[in-house]
């Protein structure tokens, strides 16, 4: 199905249907096309971004009403269509603000609650909507014209889907789907992306509603906001396979055919049968028909069943010459000035309720330094990192990067100021490939690379992390060591000035630890990246750090060269333990 001929044939076949002059078949095909626009646009939000918008149909209804009202108001159909598009886009943009406060099930619920709201509004705003009587449009046979309009909209929707699979906006959505916090830390500006995709999807749904209203020449609240019709496109997309390029289309064809059959052959219990179908899809194949084992095994269906990550097959332009020793990274070496403070914490305090995790920390990290940050578990090391990368908003005090205050800045802005970080427990974008994981920060960093260039450049980071054999594998299939290597490489792909490394060596073998030590030294020596390394393994720290900062219950208790710090009495007592030379006697 990857040959363009198939798609063209499909399009031409769809275009020929009205030529048969059979109103029954044309209407049926028309219904399928409208459903496809709805199912496909729904899947941009769900399949690409991972937000289950059960109220998508509301936008269809709004579009239908806007169109009907404009047409009754004697505007030409083209103008009415444009009006419907703008109104739905506006409604979606406004609704995005409350709705994106919600996540997961809550989002699904909040959006579903829009349906009864819209129905109440349509029933009661009688002067505008004519209440339960509905709106009758000027009688006119527009089936053929409506058919070709919706066919064009379908083609545009299909093109958008193909583009979204590969373009930068699509990658913003995919990173949001996997882990919003990490996406933001990697430089993706998430909220505008979320609003944009909902507005885009809503605009398509609104146009679909407008075309449907045009063809039916009658709408009332039940037909465009009813609960039992509203979930049909959702069920279609899921039946085919949400997030798969061909999923919505397959689902639409199957379910629409079934619906038509039921309409002709079964009287009554329509909603029951429909509910049963929805229930069974949810129970037995929420991943979709195209992900079922017996479908995936069919080699002639490969083109239909390919997952997104299976379509990414590396980009050829990467350098492949064998190098001895450390590979090179596509980073611009920075000149470092040891006399200049790159990162500074001033009286930084962070508390969770009454628990003070970071207590008035004052810290200066000089450009080009490698600083070890140690302390017992719970002493505030990761919290300090979280305050710097803005995962937490500090309660008081401030963090400065090269003199620029981070207060009031978003995580992606902090990333653009030059902060890259890893997580103690690796958080890769699980359903993207290793290469794509690294391409995300390259696309959303200062260089704003196009996906093609970013994927090519990502290869060099992958080579540096010695993960070439896993280049096109999903990141969630990696082992712990591989995930840690990926995490480190992805942080480097942010092209940071200061790199926050959180326990990258714990749980690894001595050889693997040695490699990280060498890489940390290498990125500083060759590229001038300043490093703060949280680690418990002193032998590893000892090989590279310029100095060590010790935290204890949120306070900095020691700051200096490693050999001095390990001799410090307080450090011995509170962190290293056991060998404290003198414990103050109680009965002195």
């Amino acid at each position, binding site marked *: 199905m990857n040959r363009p001929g198939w798609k063209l044939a499909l399009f031409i076949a769809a275009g020929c249907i009205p030529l048969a002059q059979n109103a029954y078949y044309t209407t049926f095909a028309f219904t399928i096309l409208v459903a496809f626009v709805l199912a496909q646009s729904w899947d941009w939000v769900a399949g690409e971004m991972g937000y*289950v918008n059960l109220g998508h149909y509301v936008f269809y209804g709004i579009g239908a009403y806007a169109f009907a009202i404009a047409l009754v108001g004697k505007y030409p159909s083209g103008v009415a269509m444009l009006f419907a598009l703008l109104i739905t886009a506006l409604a979606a943009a406004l609704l995005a603000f409350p709705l994106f406060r919600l996540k997961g099930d809550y989002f699904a619920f909040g959006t579903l609650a829009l349906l009864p709201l819209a129905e109440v509004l349509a029933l009661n705003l009688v002067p505008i909507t004519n209440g339960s009587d509905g709106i009758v449009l000027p009688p006119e046979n527009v089936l053929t014209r409506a058919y070709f309009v919706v066919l064009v909209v379908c083609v545009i929707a299909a093109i958008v889907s193909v583009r979204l699979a590969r373009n930068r906006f699509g990658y913003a959505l995919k990173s949001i789907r996997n882990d919003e916090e990490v996406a933001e830390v990697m430089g993706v500006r998430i909220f505008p992306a979320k609003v944009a995709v909902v507005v885009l999807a809503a605009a398509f749904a609104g146009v679909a509603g407008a075309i449907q209203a045009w063809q039916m020449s009658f709408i009332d609240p039940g037909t465009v906001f009813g609960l039992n019709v509203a979930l049909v496109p959702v069920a279609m997309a899921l039946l085919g396979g949400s997030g798969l390029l061909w999923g919505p289309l397959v689902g639409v064809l199957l379910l629409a055919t079934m619906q038509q059959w039921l309409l002709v052959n079964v009287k009554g219990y329509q909603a029951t049968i429909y509910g049963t179908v929805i229930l069974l899809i*949810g129970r037995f194949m*929420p991943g979709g028909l195209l992900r079922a084992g017996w479908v995936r095994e069919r080699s002639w269906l490969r083109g239909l069943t390919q997952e997104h990550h299976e379509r990414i097959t590396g980009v050829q332009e990467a350098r492949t010459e064998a190098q001895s020793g450390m590979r090179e990274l596509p980073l611009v070496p920075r000149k470092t000035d040891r006399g200049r403070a790159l990162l500074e914490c001033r009286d930084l305090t962070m508390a969770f309720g009454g628990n003070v995790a970071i207590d008035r920390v004052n810290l200066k990290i000089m450009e080009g330094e490698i600083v070890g940050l140690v302390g017992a578990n719970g002493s505030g090391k990761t919290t300090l990192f979280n305050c710097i990368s803005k995962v937490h908003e500090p309660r008081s005090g401030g963090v400065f990067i090269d003199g620029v205050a981070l207060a009031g800045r978003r995580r992606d802005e902090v990333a653009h100021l030059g902060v890259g970080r890893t997580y103690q427990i690796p958080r890769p974008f699980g359903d993207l490939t290793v290469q794509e994981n690294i391409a995300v920060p390259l696309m959303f960093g200062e260089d704003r690379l196009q996906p093609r260039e970013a994927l090519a450049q990502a290869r060099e980071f992958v080579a540096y992390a010695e993960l070439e054999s896993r280049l096109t594998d999903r990141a969630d299939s990696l082992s712990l060591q591989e995930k840690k290597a990926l995490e480190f490489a992805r942080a480097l792909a942010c092209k940071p000035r200061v790199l926050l490394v959180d326990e990258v060596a714990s749980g690894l073998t001595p050889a693997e630890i040695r490699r990280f030590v060498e890489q940390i030294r290498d990125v500083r020596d060759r590229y001038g990246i300043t490093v703060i390394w949280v680690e418990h393994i002193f032998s590893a720290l000892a090989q590279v750090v310029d100095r060590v900062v010790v935290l204890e219950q949120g306070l900095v208790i020691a700051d200096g060269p490693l050999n001095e710090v390990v001799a410090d009495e307080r450090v011995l007592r509170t962190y290293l333990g056991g060998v404290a030379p003198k414990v103050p006697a109680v009965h002195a």
Partner: protein
Amino acid sequence: MSIEALVQVLIGGILLGGLYALVAFGLSLIYGVVRILNFSHGTLLAVGGVAASLLYASFKLHPVVLMLILVPALFVFGYLFYTFLLQPLEKRSHFESTVGTVLVTVGALLILSDVTAKLAGATQRNIPIRFEAIEIGEIVISTTQIWILAAIAVLTIAMQVFLRRTWFGRAIRAVTQDPVGARICGVDSSRMKAATFAFGSSIVAVAAVLYTMSFPVDPYMGFGLTVKAFTIIILGGIGNLVGALLAGLFLGVAEGLTGFFWKSEWAPALSVILLLVILVVFPKGLGRSR
């Protein structure tokens, strides 16, 4: 617009709000333990209410007897529904299990309403039981209303005691806070989930009988109730019964006042608008979850 009429509306609102809160208790317990938003939760009230009114019409059963029939019935329904249709989805990936549970519970909602409407008719029904009215000045309160209010109060207290003092209640709270931790401490969380789902559903049976005694029910009203219960949970905090009761009373009274001062047609929209407003103004929720 007399003061007496206003008081009457307030009493009606408190009654309605208390019933909303009962429905919300079940939804909240289920969400806390099973992490599933059961979209068909309110529909159970509609089905239970229709069943109760039919049983009353045929056999003139006392409301308490109706509860004794419906509570075990919905308990068994909830247990089977969860065990056979929802539990198997837990093994799937996060997105698939989210989508799967939504589809299963929405499918159940459509089936339950449609089958009930086909079997019992899509008309509004109630339990036309009338105790004598008490008149205080111009204000008329029926003893039915007093009994229902008393039942709501007793149930809320009983639930609170149950959650704090019994083994099962403590286990529910433990799993709500940390499922893995609870399992390590010997709480069999998969059986707990099924039991909680069943228990949460059976609370609806009590609410269904009480609701049908004072307000009409129809097969399609369920989803509106689910939306209200959800708004109440957001307002009051997951697993917070007192918060849910207060939120329920607030919503019930607000709906009553909307009808009194404006038009009752707008009352159903109130909860959704309230929900959207809360989300904008208080993004972190009002109540603390427990």
